[in-house]
């Protein structure tokens, strides 16, 4: 099965599921109205990709809050979070290209949005196709990194980002 939206394609591996979504922009929020009046940039919502080899709950934070609570042995969560065009060229996004060769030593139990005992994560900020992203990968069991990181890499290999 293939997911394709907003210039992002992902071939789902057997047993995986995913979503490519953009949250509805709160155009009429006070903040956006104020920003519009002041000539400032309004809040921008960007594509977010969630890929997982376990059932994704409907209510999830962009960086996997809610989903990570469901994770256990053998589970992997892959998040791609996109930033705005103004981020292109910034130091944080110096790396070019979506990482597809993650290594276990890139993961840490402290590199998590929220510490969940036993889990490990990593963040990679990168630029591809003049788009800036954060790749965030969570392993359900840190001690299974040797088995789970290749699963993440296979999914990343099956994911493509094109110009918008």
């Amino acid at each position, binding site marked *: 099965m293939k997911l394709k939206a907003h210039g992002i394609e992902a071939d789902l591996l057997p047993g995986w599921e995913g979503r490519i979504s953009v*949250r509805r922009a*709160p155009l009429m*929020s*006070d*903040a956006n109205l*104020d*920003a519009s009046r002041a000539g*400032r*940039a*309004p*809040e*921008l*919502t*960007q594509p977010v990709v969630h890929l997982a080899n376990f059932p994704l709950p409907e*209510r999830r*934070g*962009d*960086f996997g*809050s*809610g989903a990570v609570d469901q994770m256990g042995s053998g589970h992997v969560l892959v998040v791609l*979070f*996109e*930033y*705005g065009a*103004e*981020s292109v060229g*910034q*130091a*944080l*996004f*110096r*790396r070019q290209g979506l*990482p597809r060769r993650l*290594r276990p*030593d*890139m993961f*840490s*139990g*402290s*590199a*998590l*949005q*929220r*510490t*969940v*005992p036993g889990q*490990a*994560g*990593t*963040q*990679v*900020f*990168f630029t591809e196709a003049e788009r800036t992203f*954060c*790749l965030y990968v969570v392993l359900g069991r*840190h001690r299974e990194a040797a088995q789970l990181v290749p699963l993440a890499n296979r999914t990343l290999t099956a994911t493509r980002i094109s110009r918008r």
Partner: protein
Amino acid sequence: MTLAFHRRASTSTSGSLVRDGVHRDTSIEDPIAGTTFSQRIVRAASSALAKGHSRRSFLSKTALVGSALAIGPVDFILRPGTAYGYVCGSCGDGWTAFCCTINGGSNSCPSGSFIAGWWKADNAAYCCGAARYIIDCNASCPTSCSCRCSGASCDGRRTCCNQFRYGQCHQEISCYGPVVCRIATCTPPWQYTSACTSSSATDNATVDHGAQCLATDCGKPPPPPPPPPPPPSAIAMEYAALGGSSGLLGAVVQAETAASDHRGRYAVYRRGRIYWTSTTGAHEVHGSILRAFSDVDGIHGVLGYPTADTQSSSDRRSRYSNFENGRIYYWGAGTFPIIGAIFVKHQALGGVRGFLGYPTSAVRTSLDKRSHYSNFERGRIYERGGTVREIHGAILSRHEALGGVRGFLGYPETDVVDVGDGRGRVTRFEGGYIYYTSSTGAHEVHGALWDRYHANGGPTGYLRYPHSDVRAISDGRGKFSEFERGRIYWMPGGGAFEVHGAVLDKLFEEGDVTGHLGYPTSELRPAGTVRRQTFEHGRLTYHPATGTVTVD
């Protein structure tokens, strides 16, 4: 505030990780992430020891482990700040503390940290329903803060533990340390600081994250503390004062509820009830008094709400309950209410200690529907059209013998009153009078006979008190009343006249009014040296000098 960062033994940041786009400061890896043999030992020891132990005992025991191992890396890892931070993370919620809890109350990034990213939670009560923004303050590189609890216990969140970056702010800075703390604001971060972009990340699960030092930020004061629990109701207090379920009233059958009159409340118990209004207070009614109360429609009837608990009378003969418009007595003859104007009258006459005594009937309605009345041990009180009268004793008996209120006398228009001569009493009725003395008994006088009696002085005149009711004369023509000192005769068209003394004796000798003289047609009047009284067919003359009466 300047954070007390303590850089650990430096492990060089992996250049390959940076090239791979991993910008977290790997020199600050938390023991959680450690995978060395010694770290695994410590983690296992920490986990085992932390279960069910206080921080104090935990620290002492980890110190013992450290001593036992007595090797450098383990000693380093087992420093309380580090090891406790690891364990604390397992008992906290895994999130980083708010800046105001670690930065002297300031909701801002402490020195040594920078704004590195943000997310929002929608529909936040903290922001009056608008979005709430959480801005991460990540440690600057090189960092040396250690993972620890932000407060004195594991209830607090952690600081310097999560090496995570949202990434919308200060994108010109690539290296970042762990999140030191979080700023909570209702101001969009890209307006809060130009260092942030407006690329939105959302995590609504954090909408209610709070800290004591955070308040709402929408121009409204923090919500007031919840009101104290309401005091027990007056009914509840009355029930408790009466002993609750083991007391007079017994167990609750129906909880306190509002009465349908929208005025009061009541609760039902096994052996009684408690009624309450703001003006009467809460009072119990039970037993046969409650049944009598219900018979007159309870609080919806004329008695209204109870104004006191059941109490004993001073003569010890009864128990009674007071109500807004009356009283119910429970005594040897039964349980009877006294209501409204009749109750007021009864009280004015001395109540149960007065001459009427205790009630012997419920309030009754007369057959003619014109009145209500209550019977008492020694009398009765009528209430009719706002007028309340009592009659009692022999007068009441005579009145009843003459048909009561349905007889020719009708309703009493006065109470039984003293005549004022020290002897008798009288009651005026609609159709006549009843006079009473202990020697004459109670007898009625009415009509023209009473008019003459009254004109001649009534009971304080010559005739004194009647010792008969008005009687018909055997000829079918007239009537008479017999008094202590004479008679009054009446015939239709002829009027009523008093006959007494020697003249009356002579009249009897001559055959009374049915004899040849007939009915009197005048009073006894002076005529020179004599007194003369005329009759239909003659006259009688009284000679004072001799005391004789002659027929003329």
